[in-house]
């Protein structure tokens, strides 16, 4: 056997070994329904990835899970029964989304509640600010108190403030 043949043999052996080590996700990619259901399930190896997208090298779980999914899909069971089968076998963690009932439904409400709360705070703050500004303007509109700077000085200072403010506002 020449060196070249020996190398080719050794290489083939390594590739064959590597191939045997790599579990495949084949069938669930074949049908749309398999893909659709696979996207609702997680790979249970702990990689936190969708079942049909698990790229975890040498993943021991995704291959068997996908095979199982294909078998169930082949029985033509409704989607909810397929998912229920998986939940019974692997627990709630197999679902890629939190259930919309019970305690876990809170996960769905948090962003909406945060938005509503934030919006309410913003609206209340704006109202408070405007009320305060109206009150301040009303006070400022009254007769000048003793010791108030003369109109020209007040005007100049207001002008100066306006200039500085306009300068800042037109900068960006």
């Amino acid at each position, binding site marked *: 056997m020449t060196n070249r043949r020996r190398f080719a043999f050794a290489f083939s052996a*390594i*590739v064959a*070994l*590597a*191939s045997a080590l*790599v*579990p*495949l*996700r*084949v069938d669930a*990619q074949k049908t749309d329904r398999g*893909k659709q259901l696979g*996207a*609702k399930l*997680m790979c249970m190896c702990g*990689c*936190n*990835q*969708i079942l049909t*997208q*698990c*790229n*975890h090298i*040498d993943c021991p779980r995704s291959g068997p899970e996908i095979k199982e999914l294909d078998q169930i899909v082949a029985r033509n069971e409704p989607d909810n029964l397929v998912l229920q089968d998986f939940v019974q076998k692997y*627990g*709630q*963690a*197999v*679902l*890629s*989304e*939190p259930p919309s009932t019970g*305690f*876990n439904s809170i*996960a*769905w409400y*948090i*962003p909406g509640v*945060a*938005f509503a709360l*934030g*919006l309410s705070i*913003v609206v209340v*703050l*704006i109202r408070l*600010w*405007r009320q*305060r*500004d109206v009150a301040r303007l009303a006070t400022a509109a009254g007769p000048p108190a003793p010791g108030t700077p003369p109109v020209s000085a007040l005007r100049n200072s*207001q*002008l100066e403030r*306006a*200039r500085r403010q*306009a*300068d*800042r*506002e*037109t*900068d*960006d």
Partner: protein
Amino acid sequence: MFFSALFAYRGKHPELMPYVGVVVAGVQLFFLTLNNFVASPFKVVAAAGPGGVLHLATLADGRGLNPLLQYPEMVIHPPVLYSGYTGFTIPFAFALAALLGRYPGEKWIHLTRRWTMIAWCFQSAGILLGAHWAYAVLGWGGYWGWDPVENASLMPWLTGTAFLHSVMMQEKRGMMRVWNVWLVFTTFLLVIFGTFLTRSGVVSSVHAFAQSSIGRWFVGFLIIAIAVCLAAFFKNRDYLHSDNHLDSMLSRESSFLFNNLILLVACIAVLSGTLFPVLSEAIQGTKISVGPPFFNRVNIPIAMFLLFLTGVGPLLAWRKTSLESLRRNFGWPALGGLIVAVVAVALGLREFYVALCLLLSGFVVMTIGSEFFRGARVIAARTGANLISSVGQLTMRNTRRYGGYVIHFGMVLIFIGISGTAFNQDKQMEMSPGSVMSLGPYTLHLQNFDSDPQPNYSAERATIDVDRGGRSVMMLYPTRRFYPSNQESGTMVAISSTLREDLYVVYAGRSPDTNLPVIHAYLNPLVKWIWFGGVIVVMGTILALLPNRQAVLVISAVSESAAIPGTPQPARAIISARSQIQRDND
């Protein structure tokens, strides 16, 4: 970066810099303690010698780098992202220092603005580099999996983005001081929290290679940092009173306010989704998963609202915008967006969020375009220069503003790229030489397999001839590698990328039943727009960091002639000054 910031202001701001130095030193002390005494990177190859003294072990040859990380992008992704994370320490240190030392005015914001933008730029680039690595190496056809560690990098980016917007309200109107200080604090705390998530293993993640037992140290540091922030805030909160309040709901300020609200809601959505499995397990005793479908469903509407605000913001004036001006400014951009959406729907892109995204993208691009056009037209009229040269002049006169618009444009491209995900297609087949697979407009002819031995791995490579419309357009070589030193396999995806779509081909291995090679092909529309948008975002940030070349014209004298009859003298003068500046600006 820390030393650069401290060095840049050496001998200046004596009331502020000592506090800054102390805060930065405190953060460094924590990480140096971890590196030297808790999780020394050298300890893993150390061996106990006589008397229990640790010595560096001599290894003939290691197992090599994790195969997934043997990719050029992995050389730059970690340090770039790391620079983003650590860079947020600088605005944090300045904010805390200003609060502790009651440093007057908005000076600390001017001092840290550039540093914050640099950190944000690194964070953005780091996130996109990571996404590109995931796309090119992991072989699942996507670039973002909502993994907890990915989320950990996104959260400080979201609050950092909010800060970069709301900081303008403080600079220009002296508003939102409390809010800004807390945004900076939150960004820094999220950086530490993200490191905790990455290193503690508290949530399961595909980034498992970074797990260790140092999580409790980060919890301790987080508690101390929160306590310091709270103590500084409550002690000196009177220092943070705003000079002005919001004058109108139709103003630039209110758009920033809503922008901040939306960014924060996005951050809360990501944070709650990331931590919910832990919470659920702690309360109910059963573990649940919160995977990509949840994050997509929750974050897409938020992102659409944000895109809308990106377009609206520049159309609104500071303080107050009249309905007339709003109508005038909104008309063309809204029409442009509508036309884009109608064309998209007519072309068959009938997913609701895709059509909405394209409508809003068209709107934002038109808004940005009109901002450049109006400014450049004024310069062209005054100087006689052509419009393109005027755009250059305009941009260089106010790099921050127009750099910001360039960043917005980059973000629009990213959004368009992401919207393409709705039309992804894929197909997987066991193929032997000579067999054919069709995907979209492409036909893949498998020609043969060959080996490609390398010093640290052996590889099996498929040669695929790709036809489009009956004409051979390219050859692709997806590869499967095997690394003997750590007995692991990896993929090298073959990607043919155009602005329209990516043909993404993975050699997935061999079928256990037939031993035939399995080829998985994906057709991913518009992915290149994401990377292109990322480059524009970085370029826009660099532009915004440049100093202005020419000063903006500001009048020094006020004409009384423009005053409105019947208004009091000071008010008339103010209105007059404003209208003059408005005229000059227009």
